């Protein structure tokens, strides 16, 4: 059985519109104008138990709305969903025992109290034995390296420290599925890497599935095998991360270094020169028109080739190319 099964899920919001200025406010008072926004439009996908699935898209693509429907907080306008065998919006409480959630922009730890107090409160809320709570706190504190932070009031923690505590708290009741909504938002590179590593390790150790939304491709690349890309409320791509790269990474970057200085008119047929130095150059080529073998042969034929590196563009660039290929869809009025 799938951990998550979603069919034709849609969500429409009605938002109030108001022209700018006082006149606009008065007009809105007399004749309020509303606009219907389709945040999610007929999304379908499956997620296997224990899978690490990335849900990626630009701001306003419908990622968080989908997560909130899957946790039972929002009722969808149409479609079906089953999460660990529950219809989330009908069986919210039963589902809550089996899932953990982190909404990166919102704190769930009690702000004025040490994180440990929230851990013990969650222990009661999830109806866990005190001995189990103590054991879990020990295990999670070690895994997330937060032993020294648990007694400090949450308001005194840095964002990176707080997020490690937040994710640890969401794993206290041994959920079978973790829904992480932008867990790395606002974190620096080191803190991001740290939290990603721990999430991956915990997922492997405890067999917990992770559905992760992010607008940071780095999160997906570091954590997920499979990715779903959403834009304008629709799925525009879903496959393995490696397949995404293969399918869309026909463009490669080549960096070369020669023993002798390059001529002023250095050029390689079939490749675009991005940067040229005294001994080295950076080029871009498309494997559909110029096979790597042919390009390497041309570069070698120039003589004195000391070093060559061929790399893929970052996932970030690949995803940007996918978004750009999707023309914006008119929003229903």
């Amino acid at each position, binding site marked *: 059985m799938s951990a998550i099964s979603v069919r034709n899920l849609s969500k429409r*919001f009605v938002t109030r519109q108001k022209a700018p200025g006082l006149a606009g406010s008065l007009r809105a008072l007399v004749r309020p104008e509303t606009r219907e926004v389709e945040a999610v439009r007929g999304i379908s996908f499956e997620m296997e138990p224990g899978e690490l699935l990335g849900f990626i898209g630009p701001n306003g693509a419908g*990622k*968080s*709305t989908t*997560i*909130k429907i899957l*946790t*039972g*907080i*929002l*009722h969808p306008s149409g479609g079906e969903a089953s999460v660990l065998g529950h219809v989330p919006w009908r069986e*919210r*409480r*039963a589902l*809550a*025992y089996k*899932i953990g*959630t982190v*909404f990166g*922009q*919102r*704190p*769930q730890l*009690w*702000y*004025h*109290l040490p994180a440990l*107090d*929230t851990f*013990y*409160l969650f222990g*009661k*809320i*999830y*109806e866990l034995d005190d001995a189990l709570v103590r054991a879990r706190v020990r295990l999670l504190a070690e895994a997330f390296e937060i032993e020294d932070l648990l007694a400090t*009031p949450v308001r005194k923690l840095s964002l990176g420290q707080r997020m490690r505590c937040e994710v640890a708290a969401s794993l206290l009741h041994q959920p079978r599925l973790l829904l992480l*909504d*932008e867990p790395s938002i606002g974190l620096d590179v080191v803190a991001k890497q740290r939290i990603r590593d721990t999430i991956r390790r915990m997922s492997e150790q405890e067999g917990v599935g992770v559905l992760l939304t992010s607008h940071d491709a780095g999160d997906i690349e570091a954590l997920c095998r499979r990715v779903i890309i959403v834009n304008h409320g629709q799925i525009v791509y879903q496959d393995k991360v490696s397949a995404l790269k293969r399918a869309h990474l026909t463009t490669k970057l080549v960096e070369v270094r020669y023993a002798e200085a390059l001529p002023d008119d250095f050029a390689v047929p079939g490749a675009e020169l991005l940067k040229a130095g005294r001994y080295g150059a950076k080029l871009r080529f498309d494997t559909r028109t110029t096979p790597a073998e042919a390009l390497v042969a041309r570069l070698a034929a120039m003589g004195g080739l000391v070093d060559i590196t061929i790399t893929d563009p970052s996932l970030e660039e690949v995803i940007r190319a996918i978004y750009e290929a999707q023309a914006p869809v008119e929003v229903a009025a």
Partner: protein
Amino acid sequence: MIGRKLAKYGAVFTTQLQSAAAYPLDLAARSLSIVLFMVVFFGLWRATFAAQGATSIAGLSLRDTLWYLMLAETIVLSRPRMAQQIAAQVRDGSIAYLLNKPYSFLLYQAAFSLGDSALRMLFNGLAGGAVVWLLVGPPPAIWGLPLVLVAMALGWMIDFCVAALLGLTAFFSEEVTAFEWIYNKLLFLLGGLLIPLDFFPEWLQRVAKALPFAAAIYGPARLFVSPSISAFAGLLAIQVGWICGLGLLVALAYRQGTAHLSINGG
């Protein structure tokens, strides 16, 4: 099993109690306002009694009136601040966390609000009681205190139901300030905060006493100054009636609200 279900609300209550106690100086400073109110009321009512040339008005002496107002103020200053709280949670999206835990959202809010109210009630009661004692002497009767505490608890529940109803309107409109303003004014006038309802004309007294505003404030405060079993029983019936009616409304509003909820952010 049921013990565990209830224990979670107890844990929410004690956690919020700890959170509220995180700033004891702030709590103490806040209770200064009741001290100020009581000093002002003392001056005002002493002048009123002197102008009337009476030792009692509508059956209440100056001492009764001051102790009555002290308890009424304590109740009002310690009310659940839930309406604004829920509205803020809907606006900033943090409601998402409160709705995805395995508990009843309304009981969670009740436990949280009680934790929030309890310390304020203690500090306000102690500070207000101390100053009134200094100004007019000890309270007229102490034996009714257990009954008063029960009536205060039930009154708190009525107030909680109304605050929850106001808060839940945020699921539809996000903004609750206007409704809350109206409710506060009704509490002020018909709840007996401005003056004891006994000073109202007979017909208005009868109407006001049957309303939830008086059941939350006037009822317990009046019982404190002249406790009697029959007054307690009468109040209890009105309070339980309102709790049942309003509780039902809150449950209905919650069901409707969650289906309508749209969350900001993300």
